[in-house]
């Protein structure tokens, strides 16, 4: 009655009657090298204990004084929610009144961060790129920073991943991941029309990538997203952003026409460069999020 395709599932349902082959094979206790004895040594001397107590008292005092000063300042701020707040000055007014005709973006925040202040957003993307580079320097496994025990642990984890194929998890993930990606793409492409944009949409897509990697394992993930893809996508997106914005800044600063049509406000293909820049930022953020996960989980992408 059990067809071959479902035999695994039936085995899983039957549970206890099925033979458990690999039950305790992979359990490995890791003991931190010298934690216990170090802890005793830290607080051994009387001088160190005195220093600790005085440090704690002064830390609490500093913190209480800081909070008191800040609370006193808060009560002297302009009233919360008032229109006369000095933060809402002529700059904000200009962004709101002229933004639609100058940038073509319905979402004033997107118009601000990807047109008026696009250089700032380029800095943000570069910060993400540099952060993932730094994490790579620190955690990437190569022949210089890998020991034999770590190597065997890694091999163990790979074996566990191959052995444990959870059918329920994988079926659900196959249903959910396309929806997550669709939503992420929607948020990115509608960044100039509604709340959202490159950063939030990229984070959603990165979450989808992480979910897929968690449930299907490294090998399935690396069949379409390896370190080569990662490098190609992030560098291309960043270069694309830099080139496009440099062109638009150069032409704008010299008073020339950029020749980029703004389109009708509210249409999906409108607002000039903002849509393209949103896609670039979204790709960088999605790859970076997955890169962080992957580097922390197993020191490789």
């Amino acid at each position, binding site marked *: 009655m059990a067809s071959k395709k479902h035999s695994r599932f039936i085995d899983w349902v039957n549970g206890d009657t099925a033979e458990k082959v690999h039950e305790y094979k992979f359990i490995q206790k890791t003991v931190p090298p010298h934690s216990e004895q170090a802890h005793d040594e830290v607080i051994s001397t009387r001088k160190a204990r005195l220093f600790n107590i005085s440090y704690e008292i002064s830390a609490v005092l500093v913190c209480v004084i800081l909070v008191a000063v800040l609370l006193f300042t808060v009560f002297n701020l302009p009233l919360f929610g008032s229109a006369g707040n000095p933060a809402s000055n002529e700059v904000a007014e200009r962004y709101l009144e002229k933004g639609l005709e100058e940038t073509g973006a319905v979402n004033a925040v997107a118009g601000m961060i990807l047109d008026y202040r696009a250089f700032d957003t380029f800095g*943000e993307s570069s910060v993400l790129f540099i952060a993932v580079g730094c994490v790579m320097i620190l955690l990437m496994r190569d022949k210089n920073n890998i020991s034999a025990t770590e190597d065997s642990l890694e091999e163990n984890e790979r074996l566990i991943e191959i052995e444990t194929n959870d059918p329920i998890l994988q079926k659900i993930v196959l249903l959910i991941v396309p929806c997550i990606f669709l939503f992420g793409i929607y948020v990115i492409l509608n960044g100039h*029309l509604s709340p959202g944009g490159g950063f939030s949409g990229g984070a959603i897509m990165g979450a989808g990538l992480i979910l897929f990697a968690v449930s299907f394992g490294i090998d399935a993930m690396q069949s379409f997203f390896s370190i080569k893809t990662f490098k190609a996508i992030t560098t291309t997106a960043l270069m694309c952003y830099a080139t496009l914005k440099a062109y638009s800044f150069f032409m704008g600063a010299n008073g020339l026409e950029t020749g980029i049509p703004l389109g009708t406000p509210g249409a999906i293909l409108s607002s000039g460069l903002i849509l393209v820049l949103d896609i670039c930022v979204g790709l960088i953020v999605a790859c970076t999020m997955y890169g962080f996960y992957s580097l922390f989980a197993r020191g490789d992408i």
Partner: protein
Amino acid sequence: MSDFLQSVIAYRFEIGAVILFGIGFINLLLQKNLIKKIISFNVMDSSIFLFLASQGFIEGRIAPIITGANDASLYINPIPTGLVLTGIVVSVSVSAFFLALVQRLYKKYGTVNFDEIIMLAKKEAE
């Protein structure tokens, strides 16, 4: 007294931000565990974002999605929103960098306790 209460209610977001900042700061100073230090750093970040976002809010106005007339007196201030976006991205990057450093420290010294790491490093230097 009711005056004071009224102003507390009026400034609730700013007061919440300051209290969150205090919680994050005291934990940053007192916790020995490096992971907990990073978490308190993130709590401080969040308090700053709450403060900035509350500064942009104006009573009775809507989010800056310009669908009707482009009159500045209809919408809230978009600038603090953009600043918070920048802040969140930088906060994510800095947290990831910190955590990577902590992972390296754990691999070398086998602990995430700050005092123990300092002691072991001193011993190593001798």
